[in-house]
């Protein structure tokens, strides 16, 4: 379980104020908000890439905000993260990209690594492309490659940063179905930040709505539909 408590974050001005919520095991939580609402910042705080001015992020009661690098590595082994731009390493093949977390953190034989990587690529329908470099892959394939890398070490949690942004509607639909399938089949607690309401209503078991630096709503899609707030209604019009 992840607990986010009283998070405050400031750059030149406050971007997050008093953010509180929790993510229970097995949930698919969507953090919904407009561009610049602080969603990605919140995600980076949740995985220890950014430090908040105040507040705590607890993974099963362990606060990562004050954790040292060694403790953070132990928590990060439980996390898979899919970046908005995929963030695959240009100098490595798809296979090497996906194998990286295994090579770095686990003492596995070459055969075991190969088996796990190929299984992971199979899960995202990228078998046969393992020798290609990221520059030879399409946007959707890169995204799927990034998902394969995120799930290869069997994480407990997977974070998707804007999973459908920048993709054509058909590819976005495929990515949406893939995230949903992985959540169901692998039972990974999943979190995504997005402003894509189509994605949200199709996958979310819980919605956290960020607006004007603060969490304005936590609940299911049905409950979200009942909000009268003008900004929230705008999602339905879209």
């Amino acid at each position, binding site marked *: 379980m992840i607990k986010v408590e009283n998070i405050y974050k400031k750059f030149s001005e406050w971007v997050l104020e008093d953010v509180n919520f929790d993510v229970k095991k097995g949930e698919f939580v969507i953090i919904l908000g407009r561009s610049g609402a602080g969603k990605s910042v919140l995600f980076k705080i949740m995985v220890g*890439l950014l430090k908040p001015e105040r507040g705590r992020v607890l993974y099963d009661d362990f606060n990562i905000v004050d954790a040292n*690098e060694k403790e953070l590595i132990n928590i*990060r082994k439980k*996390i898979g993260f899919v*970046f908005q731009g995929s963030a*695959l*390493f240009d100098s490595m093949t798809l296979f090497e990209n996906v194998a*990286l977390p295994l090579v770095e953190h686990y003492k596995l034989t070459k055969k075991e690594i190969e088996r796990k990587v190929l299984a992971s690529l199979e899960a995202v329908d990228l078998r046969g492309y393992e020798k290609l470099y990221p520059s030879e892959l399409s946007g959707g394939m890169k995204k799927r490659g990034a998902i394969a890398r995120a799930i290869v070490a069997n994480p407990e949690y997977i974070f998707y940063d804007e999973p459908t942004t920048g993709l054509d509607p058909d590819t976005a639909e495929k990515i949406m179905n893939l995230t949903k399938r992985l959540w169901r089949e692998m039972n990974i607690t999943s979190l995504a930040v997005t402003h894509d309401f189509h994605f949200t209503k199709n996958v979310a078991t819980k919605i956290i709505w960020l607006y004007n630096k603060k969490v304005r709503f936590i609940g299911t899609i049905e409950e979200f539909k009942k909000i009268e707030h003008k900004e929230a209604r705008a999602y339905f019009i879209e």
Partner: protein
Amino acid sequence: MLLLLQAEVISLFKNFLLSFVYILSDLFYTTYEFFVSFKYVRKYFKEIISQIEHIGANSLLLVIFTSSFVGMVATVQTAYQIREYVPVIYIGSGVAKAIMIELGPVITGLVVAGRISSGIAAELGSMAITEQIDALRVMGISPYRFLVMPRVIGGIVSLPLLTAIGIAVAIFSGMLVANFTGIANYLVFSRGAKMFFLPKDLFGGLLKAAFFGYALTISGSITGLSSERGAEGVGKATTKAVVLSSILILMLDYILGIIIFG
């Protein structure tokens, strides 16, 4: 008007001091992380070899080309300055010593810095702006261990090797020029070069080169990793890398010169 100018100068000086302190802290932190990552040398051996090839082998022609001109210029300039007052045999001594102690390591360092330091900054800067550095961190992989350490070791190993070749090429080209321009024939030049040769000169020069290898790779790494967003940020990082590595090389040259030859 004068007050405004004064305020402007003070603010410029303040900014300069701040950025100097910032770079210095970055330099110490990255050096610390480099030593901490040293225990992973065996794990990244393949990557280290590939960096030695990239920094060393791929810079070889450039170093040979520039060193040959360094040797030629050093010979002509030395001859111009001392031919009237001292026997020509000392031209070989002066040229060889200057190349081994100073010109070889410094020119090789500066030339390689222009190529490698900016390349590292551009590579790591592009990785930073496309979230690849964040991806490493979130996978629990230290970018210092994975990216910086192999490059810095590559620089420390490659620069003395390149410098040794550069010194040999420079002295040889100096000898050729001395012979063809009538300054001194092969025999006189080479006898002069051998006359005051001290192993300390050569090894001191190579030791300096190893430090220059550290300076130019660490400069590229620091500026690349702290690159700001966008293509402009990467461009600035590459410029900063070359400036920082050149300054570091010249500062280290002075400090090491005092320690080794002082």
